[in-house]
């Protein structure tokens, strides 16, 4: 935090310096950013870290101009700007690279750039190709620019996206978790390429969960937790263990462990026998009544595929998902709230009731609207959804309240097994601990719960036993309390 104050004296402010002054952002009453002060000098290579929901993506979205800040200022080279987006000198790389698979490298590079023309509407393809080739050499990618994008590996595509930004004169690169979906060698290649660019005077900000990437390549580390910067120091001389400890200590706060794991005689409800999904190795897993089981891993590790298989949405390639109780009911809280959980145009009531409709069906097959409304009202009250109006459009709710309604949807179904993906993604601290308490309550009432989350806090806070996906393997389950720091590091 103190870093911000040091910047005010008029040291030489170069045109590529980015300053963020006292930036805040609130979604309703949820304060996602609580006064961020950050100065990034031209040519610096900065790593931005923090657990999910810490505000990293909110900060980046404000910088990109997707959100507008509630208060505060952004400066680029001492000039106050509303955002860095739209400025050709600043380039953003997201997980979605914004490239077209069906076009060649050269065509992708010229997408969105002012067209170079020969005569009238006729394009100068030669000039486009030459420019693309020049840009590719800057990122060290040795590929013919006529190659179709679909023939490239994921890492090469990321390099093309970066080359495209360089081709447009970007001097500042902001890279958001692009490495999390890459294989380790490709991720390394990307980081090396970024480090080389930083040496040549380009400013690079990288958001990553991978400690070694940050520690080996960057010059400076900024750690964001709960919307505030808690550490901002040079990477050199930074203790790896201290960084892990810092990330971890924040995450275990608010644990609701009750240690009710001791019952050995609990009923088995679902069993995965040598189940193979996605690129993962076969998985064996048993969910017991009254137990909360957690699995974690990188976002693209196949974590959620396991959850889908347990919930019956995804048919495993091999192996079987065995239901051990007749008429067993399952309910899922999906990982991506907006695209997978929301029925936007429908009301809160309809969103909640959709999975449990047969409950309110009378003999005539007509739904009993009164009983449905009563049950939904009770649920809205129990989960303290705000505002507590059932006929409200679902879209109007804030993220945390949407998540509560989606939980309510699962609860109304009264399932034996809950499959919860990223249960606390994008919710504020208060809701987070409410959700943990809720999950604990479900297990105490005899349900089996599977938590599939890339957020280590979820596992540490409510899971009785946990396992991590490393590479393509789900490691053996261990009681969460016994997980050690090195395993923690794999999670964050």
């Amino acid at each position, binding site marked *: 935090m103190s870093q911000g104050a040091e910047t005010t004296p008029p040291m030489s402010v170069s045109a590529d310096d980015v300053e963020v002054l006292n930036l805040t952002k*609130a*979604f*309703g*009453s*949820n304060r996602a950013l609580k006064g961020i002060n950050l100065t990034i000098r031209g040519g610096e290579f900065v790593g931005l870290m923090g657990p999910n929901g810490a505000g990293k993506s909110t900060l980046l*979205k404000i910088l990109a101009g*997707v*959100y507008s800040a509630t208060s505060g200022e952004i400066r680029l080279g001492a000039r106050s700007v509303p955002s860095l987006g739209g400025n050709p000198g600043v380039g953003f790389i997201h997980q979605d690279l914004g490239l077209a698979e069906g076009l060649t490298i050269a065509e992708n590079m010229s997408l969105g750039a002012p067209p170079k023309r020969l005569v009238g509407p006729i394009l100068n393809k030669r000039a486009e190709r030459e420019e693309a080739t020049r840009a590719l050499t800057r990122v060290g990618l040795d590929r013919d620019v006529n190659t179709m994008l679909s023939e490239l590996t994921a890492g090469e595509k990321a390099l093309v996206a970066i080359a495209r930004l360089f081709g447009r004169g970007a001097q500042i690169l902001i890279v958001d978790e692009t490495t999390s979906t890459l294989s380790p060698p490709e991720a390394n290649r990307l980081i090396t390429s970024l480090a080389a660019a930083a040496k040549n005077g380009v400013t690079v900000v990288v958001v990553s969960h991978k400690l070694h990437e940050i520690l080996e390549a960057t010059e400076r580390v900024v750690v964001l937790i709960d919307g505030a910067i808690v550490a901002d120091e040079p990477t050199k001389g930074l203790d790896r263990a201290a960084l892990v400890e810092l990330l971890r200590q924040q995450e275990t706060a608010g644990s609701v462990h009750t240690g009710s794991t001791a019952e050995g005689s609990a009923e088995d409800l679902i069993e995965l026998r040598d189940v193979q999904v996605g690129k993962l190795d076969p998985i064996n897993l048993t969910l017991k009544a009254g137990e909360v089981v957690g699995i974690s891993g990188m976002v693209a590790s196949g974590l959620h595929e396991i959850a*889908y298989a347990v*919930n*019956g*949405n995804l048919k495993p390639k091999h192996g079987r998902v065995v239901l051990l109780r007749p008429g067993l009911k*399952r*309910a*899922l809280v*999906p990982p991506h709230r*907006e*695209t*997978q*959980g*929301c*029925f*936007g*145009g*429908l009301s809160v009531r*309809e969103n909640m*009731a*959709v*999975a449990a*409709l*047969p409950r309110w*069906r009378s003999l005539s*097959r*007509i*739904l009993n*609207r009164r009983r449905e409304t009563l049950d939904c009202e009770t649920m809205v*009250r129990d989960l*303290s959804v*705000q*505002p*507590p*109006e059932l*006929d*409200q*459009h679902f*879209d*109007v*709710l*804030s*993220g*945390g*309240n*949407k998540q509560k309604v989606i939980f309510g*949807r699962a609860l109304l179904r009264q399932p034996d097994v809950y499959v919860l993906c990223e249960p606390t993604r994008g*919710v*504020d601290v*208060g*809701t987070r601990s*409410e959700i943990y308490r809720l999950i604990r309550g479900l297990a105490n009432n005899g349900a089996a719960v599977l938590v599939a989350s890339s957020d280590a806090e979820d596992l540490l806070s409510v899971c009785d036993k946990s396992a991590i996906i490393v590479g393509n393997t789900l490691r053996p389950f261990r009681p969460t309390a016994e997980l050690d720091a090195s395993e923690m590091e794999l999670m964050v």
Partner: protein
Amino acid sequence: MSQDFGTSTPPAEVSPTQSDGAPLRQDSPRSISALGTGLGKRVVESGLSFVAFILLFAGFGIWLRGNFLNIDARLLDIHQNVPILLMSLAALTTLIAGAFDLSIAGVADLSCYLAVGLVVKQHFPFALIVVICIAVGLVIGFINGVLVERLHMNPFIATLAMGTLCEGVAAVYSGGVLINPSGGTAQLPKWFLDLGSYQHKAPEWLIAISLPVAAIAIFFALDHVHPQGWSQKRWIGAKLLLLGVLALLLVFVFRLSRWLSGTSWLILVLLIAALLLWLLFEYTTFGRQVRAIGSNREAATLVGLPVRRQVVKTFMLGGALAALAGIAFAATQGSASPGVADTALLPAFAGAFLSTVILSRGRFTVPGTIIGGIFVVWIGTALIIGGVSSNWTDVVNGVILIMAVGFATVMRRKA
């Protein structure tokens, strides 16, 4: 990205006192602000287009007076457009599920030909013919559903081709000419022709029953806009007062009795079909699941709904309604001519899209479809009465549909 954007902005305007996770305080100021912004906005948003239509109607009434404000003539308009309105309902069913079916015109054509042709050429009993027509609609809907849902064909091309195919079959069956039961040939049953004629009205007792039912329905429907903080006693009083005023208005200003006595059999068929469809979509598991599927298919899958099966069912339902529309065409015309339903495809879809803004906030509804369809018809007629040459009919219709649906779309985006 736009997803995130859309969801990030609204919370700020919900209410400043809202707090994630804070226990609800009954006396907090937000209950008042919800009444002021939430409920009020909701009513205004969903009622605006309806009011606009009423004003337009009143405007034409003031301009054209008796020529336009003629209850019998306006009911005749509805009567003649019952087949199109039925096709609107057919279009609506698949639209609610997030799909669409362009074959409904073809199905209606084929069904119209079958209804007349099977009498004239094959001498089938008419009840059987109705069953055959509906069955054909169901089968074609099923094929459409399988093509789109199982084989993952592009719905645009699959249903368009299926519609053309139906018209082709109709042409082959009829030899491409008008089938008109005349003189020597077998006649359409008299009750069927009566059904299609405007002169034959629905019986009074049916109307007499439906009135109190409607009153009770409105009484309970009003509970949706129950202001928070009003006591039950006060609310019931307010509702009764509102109903009374409404009844007086309808009886003395809008001449309710003449509207009712002018209701023809065909209009009654339309109303019953609409009522059943409304019940299906609002009060059954099927309807609610279909709405969820139409709102977010992926989420519906993850919730565990039988998505593909339900969508195929909506195609079948749409096919059956289109077939019913074909029978209605046969009833109003007493004959079957080539491409009778072709020009109805656009108005049918327009009516369905209009429903998203009529007494509704962005969702497809059955009552909205009927009301929107009727108003579009009336405005077209008003312009013709007002002196626009009948050669301009299609131009006028096109302009009205574009304006109405454009208005609907703009309103929906704002809401």
